């Protein structure tokens, strides 16, 4: 048997510094290693700074989900202080974070995922609508972004790197006429989603509750010609339903907390059964990461970040986060499984947590969130405050868990004498693309790649689809 080791990097249409090294036997991956290869040192940058600086600095971890990072930093400070945001701020915050998620999901789908079908080995005529900078769907998706950005601008001022979410609330009160404008812009974006992504009204899609209902939907009306229908047909034809599964354990800290503390998508941990989520069960391992080993596996509240690039037994700048000592997947699929979304649960039952189901979950979540943005906007009361002064964080510990577009994001903070003593970040891709841990257990992607066919090492198309189905953000991972 011939065993071959190949390193793949970079990936076409994927940002950030990722290298995947795979062992191939008989044209199939038998083991893989995911490496984040660029270290920037955000956690060490924060030591000794004013706690509020974390809002400014961590937002620069990632150009696509910076608002979520700043929200996690603000939440960590709030948890240290034991204060809450006013109701309007929670609603406005939800709108901002949901728009960031929708932008991220559609950027992923149109810029990174769908165009692969235009290239070898697929070269699908049907996929020409996704051709970068040329296909009709690609162009319209980029153009329609403006409407959603307009809603964001009215509430967050600027993006990337808005500082509108602060410990005391949101900085921009929204007037009634601005809410009206936002509704109008949102309806423009909805029209794009209904006309082009779905080929039907939002509500019709949201009523689908099972695989047979989805199949019937795909076969009726103009749904098959929509972007989602085209993607589904291409995925089924090329076996994206059969790759990328693993014995998944799913994690969510609870997405988009509503005005009264409840979450739109509930927190939980799912390994067949859904159980309560407890952030105290998280540890980070560094046995295979370029960090000093003396800490071993530490809970993030007392985590350490001591780079050790000389360690040649390590292979990634990413640490290995574990829940109850086990790897876990996070992201739209995890959120919707834990929320017992009927359509996604049924798809996962039939096709497993495969590349196809992960991608459908991402689109489905975008559609659910779009509907919710309108509802949250409607609940904002311009007569009520958006902000109430929060005291200075002088000492103590705090944790901020926020669902980012790509999954669970956690910030852990310790403050003494008004300065940050320790800051630890665990990102969604940190979970999904984690390296091996203390007992050499691979991360979710590393396991999901096993068994994926690589008939032509020059064009590892199926492998790229499995990697991309996790929507990896390497900027976030190696912060």
């Amino acid at each position, binding site marked *: 048997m011939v065993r071959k080791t190949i390193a793949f*990097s*970079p990936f*076409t*249409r*994927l*940002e*950030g*510094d990722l290298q995947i090294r795979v062992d191939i036997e008989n044209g199939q991956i038998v083991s893989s290693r995911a*490496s984040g*290869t*660029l*270290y920037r040192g955000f956690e*060490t*940058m924060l030591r000794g*700074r*004013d706690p509020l*600086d974390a809002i*400014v*600095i961590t937002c*620069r*971890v*990632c*150009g*696509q989900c910076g608002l979520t990072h700043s929200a996690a930093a603000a939440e960590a400070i709030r948890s240290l202080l034991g204060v809450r945001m006013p109701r309007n701020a929670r609603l406005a915050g939800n709108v901002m974070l949901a728009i960031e998620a929708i932008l991220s999901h559609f*950027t992923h789908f149109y810029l990174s995922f769908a*165009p692969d079908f235009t*290239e070898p080995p697929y070269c699908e005529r049907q996929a020409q609508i996704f051709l970068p*900078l040329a296909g009709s769907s690609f162009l319209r998706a*980029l153009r329609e*972004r*403006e*409407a959603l*950005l*307009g809603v*964001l*601008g*009215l509430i*967050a*001022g*600027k*993006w*990337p*790197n808005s*500082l*509108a979410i*602060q410990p*005391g609330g*949101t*900085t*921009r009160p929204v*007037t*009634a*006429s601005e809410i009206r404008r936002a509704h109008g812009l949102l309806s423009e974006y909805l029209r794009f989603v209904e006309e082009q992504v779905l080929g039907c009204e939002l509500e019709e899609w949201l009523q689908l509750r099972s695989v047979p209902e989805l199949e019937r939907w795909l076969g009726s009306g103009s749904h098959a010609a929509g972007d989602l229908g085209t993607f589904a047909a291409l995925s089924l034809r090329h076996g994206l339903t059969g790759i990328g599964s693993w014995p998944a354990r799913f994690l969510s800290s609870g997405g988009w907390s509503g005005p009264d503390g409840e979450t739109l998508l509930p927190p939980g941990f799912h390994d067949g059964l859904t159980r309560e989520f407890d952030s105290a069960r998280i540890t980070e391992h560094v046995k295979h990461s370029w960090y000093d080993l003396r800490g071993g596996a530490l809970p993030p509240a007392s985590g350490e970040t001591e780079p050790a*690039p000389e360690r040649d037994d390590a292979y990634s700048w990413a640490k290995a986060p574990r829940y109850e000592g086990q790897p876990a997947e996070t992201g739209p699929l995890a959120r919707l499984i834990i929320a017992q979304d009927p359509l996604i649960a049924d798809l996962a039952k039939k096709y497993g947590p495969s590349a196809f189901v992960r991608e459908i979950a991402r689109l489905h979540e975008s559609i659910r969130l779009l509907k919710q943005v309108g509802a949250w906007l409607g609940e904002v009361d311009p*007569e009520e*405050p*958006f*902000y109430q*002064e929060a005291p200075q964080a002088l000492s103590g510990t705090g944790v901020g868990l926020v669902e980012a577009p790509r999954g669970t994001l956690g910030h852990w903070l310790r403050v003494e004498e008004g300065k940050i003593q320790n800051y630890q970040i665990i990102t969604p891709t940190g979970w999904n693309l984690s390296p091996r841990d203390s007992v050499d257990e691979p991360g979710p992607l590393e396991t999901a790649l096993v068994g994926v066919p690589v008939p032509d090492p020059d064009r590892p198309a199926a492998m790229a689809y499995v990697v991309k189905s996790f929507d990896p953000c390497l*900027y976030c991972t190696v912060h």
Partner: protein
Amino acid sequence: MANLLWIQAVCCGGETASLLNSDHPHLPAALRTLGATLLGHGYFHDQDTGRAEQVIEECASGKRHVDLLAVEGAVHPQAPDGSAWASAKPLAEWIRAIAQVADCTVAIGTCASFGGVMACGRNPLRATGLQFHRDQKGGLLGASFRSKMGVPVVNVPGCPAHPDWIIGTLWALRANRLDEADLDRFNRPRVFYGKLAHHACPRNEYYEFKASAAAYSQQGCLFENLGCKGTLCESDCNERLWLARTGSCTRGGFPCLSCTSPLFPDGFTPFFKTAKIGGIPTSLPLDVPKAWYVGISGLSKLACPERLRRNAVSFKPVWAGNQESNEDGPQNDRL
């Protein structure tokens, strides 16, 4: 067609995200005005142009001509491992090599221009900008670097840079409409960085009368108490506006942090409050003499109309002419 090689170095992808936000015109049309093929970029790279590492090698060797080299992110000149992007040698080496053969080189964002957030604090990784390290000339390419076109690295800072600044600068270079005389002391195109973020800020009337917000979400000026650096920040943010021309930092209710400046971020701490000595902000507006500032602000505070005094510390409008009754008066005219 010209070739635009876009390299993502030590970055967060924020410049790319900002570029995708182009509107009037949208990105595809904006790229068409450049008449350039986008090479190397994580998103727009397509297989017809060859594998990314092959492209970078061909660009470095001169086999493929680079009309414009755009770099997003700082560089680690001394990184042991470099980037997965082109693992044959550290990314900084590739950038150095391609800058020698490219017609011109553009630093996109504050990190590529000056080091920015990636080089903040103690900067143990020694991240730096292409031709500046913070406000000192040097950086990766050295103070005397000139591209084949004869210009230094053109800096397009901002965290992130506005999409118009990015496209506008690339276009001006392509069209031979930008030379050294058009750049300011930090090699930024004056056309975008010749104004202040303060200009056209809707809080300017509050600024004039020193009617200041005491907390976020209030309508007053953010300069006196809440750390706004808009009077120091050389950019046209509040005239140009962001996100489908709906907002800016100060319109979003949070302070401008002067992110287009070479000393961003560490030169602008504390971010969220205004450092003062004897009640006078230490960071006075650019080119306003201190004695005049103190004199004028004392007077203007005295002259401040009641309408501004009250609105400055209110999150919702308090109407002029009915100050007495507005607390419980009808609010339907807010529409």
